[in-house]
Structures are given as C-alpha cells and as structure tokens.
C-alpha cells in the first residue's frame, strides 16, 4: 500500500512552557481531503502550521508522502506543499504587483517559463489577465483570495494546507472559492488539509473530518456521519447542534 500523503503521529506542539497540541494522530491519503474543525484555541491551526514548519517546538512524527519531516523544511518541501491563509488582505504584499508575488515562488524554486506559468495560474483560478499588473488593494476580497490560491498552486504542489480559506469572505464569494477548490482538486489530484470553524463548509469539501477540542482530536468521522448526526463525542454533537439550529431556522 502506498504511504499516505500526509501522516501525523502523536504530534505535540508547545508554545514556550505551554503545550497546545496534546498528541494528535491522523493521516490523509493522496488526492483526499481532510478537514479539522474546532473552536478558537483548540489547536487546529497550530497543527497546520507545525506541518508547514511554522511552529518549531514540536515532537512526534510527521511525514509528507512517506518522507519524515525534521526540524527544518527543505526547499523541495515547499514545492510539494503550499499554504493558503485566512486573510487575503494580510497574506499578500501590499506594495508588490500580483505579477511579482506570483513570480517569487518560481524564482525560489528556480523554475523556468515564469511568464507562461503566471498566465496559466491566473487563468486557472479565474482571474482576468489584466489582474496581473495590479496591486492587491485594486482587487476585491474574493479576487485576492484567488491570487493567494494561484500563488500556492504556481509551483505545482501536491498538497495544499488551507487555513480558514473562506471565513473572511462574503458567502457569495465563499461559494465561488469553494467551487474553485473542488475543481482544482478534481483537475490536479491535490491533497487538501483544511482548517475551519464552519461545519457546513468542512462537510462540503472534506469527506473525512477531525474534531478538535482543547488540543486533542476528540473524534474522527466521515462527513456523511456528521451530516446524519452519527457522532460519538459530545463536543461534536454540540457543534453540530449549533450549526443545524441556524440552518433549520431558515
């Protein structure tokens, strides 16, 4: 059997003296999507950041496509694995054109055909070619998140780490971005590891879901079980009840 694309085993993460992730294990097969839900402070984003090499004080084991990850991420890691952040206002450089921001990962990875790759990336995320020489403030929030996704995709990664990719967006724009992510996954066979607090969003994009509470993954279940209410842990039940209560009201 092939190694899972993402394997995390007994992961513990500390910030100073405080441990915020207490031994979390899960794996994601190649081309699959795994979503982590939970409230703020539950540790879900920290796991994502630890995998990306942004939380240095961790123990346990993490592997990308069977290769164990160490303290430092090699350059090759970022060609294969990229991250999309929540806030497209904060994650793009305000004084660089979209062209320059899309070129940078290609230069770092010493890839050729930069011009053609940028044109293709913009087209792939549904941005007009005219967006290329604009600055972030000249684009709408949804267009900026498309730029962030284009930047993550431009080196041709196999894994995308998605940290609340739609929570800063209006619901109409959220629908467009979620459809885009689904299309890109189908076209490229990407593996997604997503973090969100929105159960409807996670169930829409991820067939398999981990529920985080207080630094522990208290339950792993399928989206179908979550939808149907076949849940084991009280925290999952509580989150589900809050989400369905509002839906049923409408």
């Amino acid at each position, binding site marked *: 059997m092939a190694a899972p694309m993402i394997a995390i085993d007994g992961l513990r993460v500390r910030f100073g003296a405080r441990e915020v992730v207490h031994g979390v294990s899960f794996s994601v097969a190649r081309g699959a999507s795994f979503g982590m839900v939970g*409230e*703020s402070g539950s540790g879900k984003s920290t796991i994502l950041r630890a995998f990306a090499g942004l939380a240095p004080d961790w123990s346990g084991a993490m592997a990308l496509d069977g290769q164990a990850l160490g303290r430092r991420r090699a350059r090759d890691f970022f060609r294969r694995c990229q991250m999309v952040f929540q806030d497209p206002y904060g994650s793009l450089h305000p004084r660089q054109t979209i062209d320059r921001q899309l070129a940078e990962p290609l230069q770092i990875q010493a890839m050729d055909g930069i011009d053609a790759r940028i044109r293709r990336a913009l087209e792939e995320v549904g941005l007009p070619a005219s967006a290329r020489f604009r600055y972030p403030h000249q684009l709408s*929030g949804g267009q900026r998140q498309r730029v962030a996704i284009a930047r993550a995709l431009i080196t041709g990664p196999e894994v995308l780490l998605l940290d609340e990719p739609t929570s800063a967006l*209006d*619901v*109409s724009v*959220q*629908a*467009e971005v*979620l*459809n885009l992510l*689904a299309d890109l996954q189908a076209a490229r066979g990407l593996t997604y590891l997503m973090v969100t*607090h*929105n*159960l*409807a*969003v996670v*169930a*829409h994009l991820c067939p398999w879901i981990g529920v985080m509470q207080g630094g522990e993954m208290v339950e792993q279940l399928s*989206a179908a079980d*979550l*939808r149907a209410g076949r849940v084991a842990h009280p925290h999952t039940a*509580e*989150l*589900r009840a*809050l*989400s*369905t*209560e*509002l*839906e*049923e*009201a*409408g």
Partner: protein
Amino acid sequence: MSAHVEMRDLRVAFPSPRGPVEVVHGVSFTLGAEKLGIVGESGSGKSVTARAILKLLPRAATISATRLTFDGIDVLGASERQMRAIRGKRAGLILQDPKYALNPVMTAGAQIAEAWRVHHRGSARQARAAAIDLLAQVRIRDPGRVAALYPHELSGGMGQRVMIAMMLAPDPELLIADEPTSALDATVQAEILRLIEDLVARRGMGLILISHDLPLVSHFCDRVMVMYAGRVMEELRAANLSAAQHPYTRGLLDCLPSLIHPKDRLSVLKRDPAWEG
C-alpha cells in the same frame, strides 16, 4: 408603541477625487420596540445606514434624508451636544471586536463605571457597585474578579459581555449591534445572542442587528431588511425567510453550503445590474 427610529429616503455620500460617491441610495424604515436585522454583503451600506441614526459617520460624509428621527428628535438638525445626549445614553452601539473596542489600559470594571458615571450622578463607589451589578446582568459568574481584569486578560466572549455591560450602563432604549458575534466561536455566539435577546425583551429596547449572516439574523430578529449596493432589496418577516422572493435574497440563501442538505456544487450568485437601480 411609539417609533424609536424613523428613516425616510436616507442618502449618504463620501467625497472622492471624481466628485461625491453616493453609497446609500434612499433607505427607509421605521423601528419600534422590536428586533430588526439588516443583512448584506461587505459594502452594501448596512453599517453606514445604522450609524447614520447616531450621526456617527466620518466628517467627510454627507447625509441627507427627508426624515430621520430618533424618538421624535430630528437627528440631522440636532447639534453635536444634542447628539451626545443620545449616543450611549439613549442608543448604545455594540461593535464587532472587543479587542479593539475596549480601552486596553483600563480594567473592565473601570470602563463600565466610567460609562455609568457619564450618564448618572453618583460617587465613584456607586459607579463601581453599578459596574459589578451590570457584569452580573450579562451573566459573568464572578463579576468582582472580572471587574479587575484588563481587556487582554478576557476571552472574546467575556470581552463582548463587558462591552454589552458598558452599553447597558445608561439604560438605552435602542441597541445597535454591528456584527456583535462575528469574531466569536459558535458556542459563545449562541450565548451572547441569547443574552442580547433576553436583555432586549426584559428592558423593552429596540434592537438593530447588523450582520452578513442571513440564517443567524432570521433566527434571532423579528424583521429582516436585505441590503445590496446601498439599497433595500427586500424587507420580510424573519419567519418567512425561506419564502423570500427577491432573487438576491434567494441567491444568498442558495450559495450557502448546508450541513443537513448536501449539495454537489454550490450555486453562485448571479448579480443583476438592475439591483443597483
């Protein structure tokens, strides 16, 4: 029931290098002791509309209306002095993020006591007692301890309770809540909304709840006004949301992913230029 707020044909414009840009194009509504939700996407003019009631807009903004009154007082004709007697005292404003809206170098108790003393006559000791009483009213379990905490020592939900306590200090008749729970977790969001609901009912206040979250607002309010590009698209009883007629409202509802009813693909909102008048 007398109307707290009457608004007829509100227009707000901001200056730009190419001349004034109108962002609210003729909004009208009447509000009594009820819960009105204003829903719309970013840039729809929902916050600007609500803030116009308190004349809390940047100086550069031009506001006009054929009628804009708060409890019969002509807001547009009122002096700043008259407005100060309304703001806070008779109409409170709850903002989205307690991290930014609270003073970081004052304790929670001191901020509430300050708000109380601006609008009541009383000693420092009475103000402190009132602050602790208000913290208890927003269901903080250990109000004496929380009163001594600074904003950075409070969780998001606690911070929002402190802000609500501050707004309640002068006994307002109207609360304007601008995305009061968007920065909070779902479990905390539900608690804060129940708290606001309870306080509004107990004190007979009017409430304007501004949010981008259509299901949330319809769950919570009596009436919902849907705004798009500075205009009211539709106004409906909250209970009838699922029977909404306007294509924009329908579009907003349809593009939401649902936990109960899975969709293969989300429908995307098709914006009709006709909605912009």
